[in-house]
């Protein structure tokens, strides 16, 4: 039986913000002045981050995760495919997940189909192709209208899958991306195409579109209370409505972890990086202080009906992850799991038990965390936490989801893959 898949997610944060950043600047996104970028200090930064991911590969992580953000201090990969290309050359077994290319920001989705196909060939078939419509900040960064962005997103994604699975050249008669010659060279190595992941925050339409097509749903929430299990139940129901069965590898979740020698030193070692991450990098994204750009009436991508449901079921000014005022409050959000190996194991075991999600996407480098601490935490995780998690999860998944492998086979058969 398949154990939980453990991924190392790297956001490539900007670590050199001034100490008074939070006092002086109202956001880390879109309008954060790029005069703060220090080219001299940042020399070699990408190499340090790539080396950390190469280490994760050697440590036996199942995959490495990258994502796309623009004009911000939270993640320095406006083009995650460039980092993925570098990773194909310094890693050998880990999957490379780009989660994802932001399709409405691309003039032509074919470029994404081509680049993923290149990456799949360069990595010997290790690419997981993530696709996202882009959140609030990207709307502003690239002047992407919110209202039609979902429709554009699904048109682009369906076109890319056709371009990977149907012989070209063919004509695409789409509303947003009409194309006369769809005939991309190269094609991906994986057949019928690389696995596809799509992030969402429980909006019903995304769940439905993913379920229809059998794509992996990545729940983008960073906090994991009872809502994570509820999201899984919701997705399981939608899958059933579309003739598919839930199993743990139909979903992924994001969390952060720091593994120290013991609980006390773990907290001491990571606290600076954690607060830098919460106060500076989440400002403008998952913090109410300043102007949060990720979600709200100014990024009206939801149809009116869905917005009314949101209004009826939420309170204005509700607290976000970055609003945590002290360690205890942060700890309760079950977002950043900190402790010695036993503590981290117990908490993740509990999360697997409650959520029944099989793809755990774990961020190890937090904020301005030094390289030495980041690598030591990853090593402790890989050697003292991961083996126990794999053993435990393989057992419970086998008990609760005995149909998993049949479902996976069925998915391949459905998509016309050669046996």
């Amino acid at each position, binding site marked *: 039986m398949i154990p939980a898949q453990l991924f190392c997610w790297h956001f490539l944060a900007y670590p050199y913000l001034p100490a008074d950043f939070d006092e002086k600047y*109202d956001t880390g996104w879109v309008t954060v002045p790029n005069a703060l970028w220090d080219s001299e200090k940042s020399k070699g930064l990408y190499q340090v981050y790539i080396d950390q991911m190469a280490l994760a590969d050697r440590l036996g992580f199942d995959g490495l995760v990258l994502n796309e953000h623009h004009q911000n201090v939270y993640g320095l990969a406006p083009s995650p495919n460039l980092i993925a290309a570098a990773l194909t050359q310094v890693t050998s077994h880990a999957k490379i997940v780009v989660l994802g290319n932001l399709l409405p920001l691309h003039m032509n989705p074919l470029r994404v189909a081509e680049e993923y196909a290149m990456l799949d060939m360069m990595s010997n078939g290790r690419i997981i192709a993530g696709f996202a419509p882009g959140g*609030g900040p990207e*709307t*502003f960064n690239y*002047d*992407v*209208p*919110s*209202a*039609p962005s979902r429709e554009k997103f699904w048109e682009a994604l369906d076109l890319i899958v056709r371009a990977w699975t149907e012989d070209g050249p063919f004509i695409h008669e789409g509303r947003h991306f009409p194309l006369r010659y769809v005939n991309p060279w190269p094609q991906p190595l994986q057949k019928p195409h690389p696995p596809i992941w799509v992030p969402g925050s429980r909006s019903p339409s995304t769940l439905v579109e993913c379920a229809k097509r059998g794509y992996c749903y990545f729940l983008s929430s960073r906090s994991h209370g009872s809502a994570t299990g509820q999201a899984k139940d919701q997705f399981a129901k939608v899958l059933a409505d579309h003739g598919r069965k839930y199993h743990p590898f139909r979903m992924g979740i994001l969390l952060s972890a720091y593994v120290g020698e013991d609980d006390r030193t773990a907290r001491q070692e990571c606290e600076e990086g954690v607060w830098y991450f919460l106060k500076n990098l989440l400002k403008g994204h998952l913090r*109410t*202080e*300043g*102007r*949060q*750009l990720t979600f*709200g*009436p*100014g*990024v*009206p991508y939801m*149809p*009116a009906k869905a*917005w*009314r449901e949101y*209004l*009826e079921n939420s*309170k*204005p*000014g*509700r607290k*976000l992850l970055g609003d945590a005022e002290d360690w205890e409050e942060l700890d309760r959000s079950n977002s950043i799991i900190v402790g010695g190996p036993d503590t981290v194991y117990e908490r993740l075991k509990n999360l697997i038990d409650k959520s029944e999600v099989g793809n755990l996407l774990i961020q190890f480098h937090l904020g301005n965390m030094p390289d030495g601490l980041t690598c030591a935490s990853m090593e402790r995780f890989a050697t003292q936490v991961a083996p126990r998690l794999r053993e435990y999860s393989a057992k419970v998944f086998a008990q609760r989801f005995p149909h998993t492998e049949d479902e996976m086979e069925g998915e391949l058969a459905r998509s016309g893959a050669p046996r």
Partner: protein
Amino acid sequence: MTARVIEAGGRDVAVFEAGDGAPLVYLHGFADLHGVGADPFPFHQALARARRLVAPAHPGCAESAEYQDLSTVEDAVYHTLEVLDALEIHRFDLVGHCMGGWIAAELAVRHPERVGSLTLIGACGLFVAGAPIGDVFMMAQPERGVDHAGLRRMLFAAGDTKLGNQLFPDGRGEIDDEMRRYQMLRFASFIGFRPPYFYNRSLVNRLHRVTCPALVIWGAEDAMVPLAHGHAYAAGLAGSNGLEIVSGAGHAAHLEEPDRVAGLVTEFLP
């Protein structure tokens, strides 16, 4: 005074009507009838005392259905023509504010024979170098999750006015009001939020086709569509009666100074 839903172009369209006489078509903006309120403001009531006021809600706004194929301002123009045809209004005076002003101007350059007179109040739609239209979407994201001061400053004269606080309150307002504001932003996002941002670069070259009498009214402190755009409209419209600048008013000049602005419009109407 009636508010009803009619069918036009196969879609439901909410239309507010009041008053008698020759038809006066009013196309709304953000801080306006349909955009923030179900009931007419004093400005609209004043127009309805002079004429038969007909004010449809844009696609997706108020009780109007969303229009699946809406993607450019031209779609909004032809949608509006469908509405006027359904109402059997063939020739009319046309008044528009903000996005409604943009649609009005685009309609008038295409069908000058149907428009008896054109009045634009704080209308977007033009490209004016060095005078970008403000980012209403970013301002619609509240500060600290609840504070709408940025949006109020964009739509009303400098500082928080009583009217601004009433129409765009901090925190969570009544859900129906929140919905109206959201729907207006969503409509605007379909046709206004893309490069170009709330303008059509070709429009300025077409303005000369509007030969009917035209009046341009602008809040002196408009923080969304800079006053330079008012000058550009007044210079480009062939039948221009010039630019009236309303001191002490912002983008929603007709709500902040209803008597003055309604007076300018009714005096101007042929």
